[in-house]
């Protein structure tokens, strides 16, 4: 039975000032909890040993979606269920709303938040296990050991960034607002992640993510999100990809961005994407570019060659979504295989 060992204190601030004071006071001994759908399973698996847990759910300043003329602003506590069902979000940022709808299953989306999703711990088949299971292998670089069972010889943890909203927010040029005792700073979502599976966040232990700013896309911007998973109903990504580009009246594609994740410790931006007239050949070229740079690892329990073969297919599905040719339903079962 996976219970939570009651070895720590729970604090429930109601304002951001209180959160910052608590972070200042407790530093690395503290951990934040929002919806708890990632934090609680990891705690049960003995991955964290906090002395203090700070619950964010009582901080009303972290709630709500603001529709500004130049951007949409999401509080860190905005629920994934709220994001997938808000028709105004879906109208402006369809790929974000779709990504939110494809996270986990309905129950997790009703508890899970955007801030928690962006700060999701990295995942690996050798780490998301019970303490007993991990102990049998003698641990690994991320926890209690000195080898990596994925790369075997490597000295760096390559556990996979597995959050579905992160690649989309990167593709949309979003930024996050971070608050700490030192003040406020803003980072592009792309810079929120570093290439280290042990902790892939460029977020200090005393920082809290407060808001996400997504610029309103121009009229020519098209966007799509696709996800590969074992069960369409609930699972973490085996791969996900976010696409955005401009398309003019003459069907010329420009300013493309293509991000893949669930591969390495941070989302990967695909470089040297082609531009020009949008046709099957151009889409195939996008697929080839992605195939060349996405090399899945055994950190996720699914055949790596099959996952790589699926890369160009995900790219074409993302194009279909971006061009409005895919099923219009925002719900996850439309993705079931």
């Amino acid at each position, binding site marked *: 039975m996976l219970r939570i060992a009651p070895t720590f204190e729970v604090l429930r601030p109601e304002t951001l000032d209180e959160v910052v004071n608590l972070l200042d006071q407790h530093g690395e001994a503290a951990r934040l909890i929002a919806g708890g759908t990632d934090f609680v399973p990891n705690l*049960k698996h003995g991955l964290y040993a906090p002395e203090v*847990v700070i619950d964010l759910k009582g901080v009303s300043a972290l709630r709500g979606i603001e529709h500004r003329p130049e951007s949409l602003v999401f509080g860190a506590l905005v629920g994934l269920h709220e994001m997938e069902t808000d028709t105004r979000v879906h109208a402006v940022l369809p790929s974000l709303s779709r990504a939110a709808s494809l996270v986990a299953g309905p129950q997790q989306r009703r508890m899970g938040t955007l801030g928690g999703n962006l700060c999701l711990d990295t995942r690996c088949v050798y780490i998301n296990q019970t303490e007993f299971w991990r102990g049998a292998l003698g641990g690994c670089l991320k926890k209690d050991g000195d080898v990596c069972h994925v790369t075997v010889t490597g000295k760096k943890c390559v556990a996979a960034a597995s959050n579905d909203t992160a690649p989309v927010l990167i593709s949309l040029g979003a930024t996050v607002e971070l608050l700490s005792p030192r003040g406020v700073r803003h980072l592009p979502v792309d810079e929120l992640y570093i290439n280290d599976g042990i902790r892939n966040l460029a977020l200090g232990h005393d920082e809290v993510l407060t808001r996400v700013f997504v610029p309103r896309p121009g009229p020519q911007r098209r966007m799509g999100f696709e996800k590969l998973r074992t069960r369409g109903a609930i699972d973490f990504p085996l791969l996900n990809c976010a696409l955005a580009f401009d398309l003019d009246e003459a069907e010329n594609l420009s300013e493309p961005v293509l991000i893949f994740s669930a591969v390495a410790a941070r989302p990967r931006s695909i470089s040297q994407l082609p531009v020009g007239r949008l046709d099957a050949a151009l889409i195939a070229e996008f697929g080839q570019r992605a195939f060349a740079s996405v090399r899945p690892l055994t950190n996720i329990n699914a055949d790596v060659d099959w996952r790589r073969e699926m890369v160009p297919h995900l790219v074409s599905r993302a194009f279909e979504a971006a061009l409005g040719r895919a099923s219009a339903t925002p*719900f996850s079962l439309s993705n079931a295989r």
Partner: protein
Amino acid sequence: MILRFQVNATDVELDVLPMARLLDVLREDLRLTGSKEGCGEGECGACTVLIDGRAVNSCLVPVFQVAGAKVETVEGLASGLHGHERLHPVQAAFLEHGAAQCGICTPGFLVAAAELLAHTPHPTRLEVREALAGNLCRCTGYQKIVDAVANALGRQGS
């Protein structure tokens, strides 16, 4: 900590550890053993309850998070809470369709279906499957469950 919340329309006040799982507080402190533990990791939905009308996995909820909230469990479905004197329509439909075999998953399915019914009186079959996507059943193959929920909704509309 002293925690106050509502369970199946009754006020409760309990002395609990804040990080105790809502599932254990329901099953052990309140003796509401209808909610089941399948996986304990948020993957199976057997522990599904409603918090303020939303279906969530009670094995992932530290109990302090329900302070002041309204919790409904499978035991609450049949008690007249939804305006029905006895069985909730979805419970009656499960019986009629033989939608339960071993039964361990059934309370979770019933609660998730009840949330769907409450806000979408006439859902499509896809919406039924979507609402039940977080619930696993290893006995029935799901068809009878989907049939039961679809039928229950039909009857509610009539």
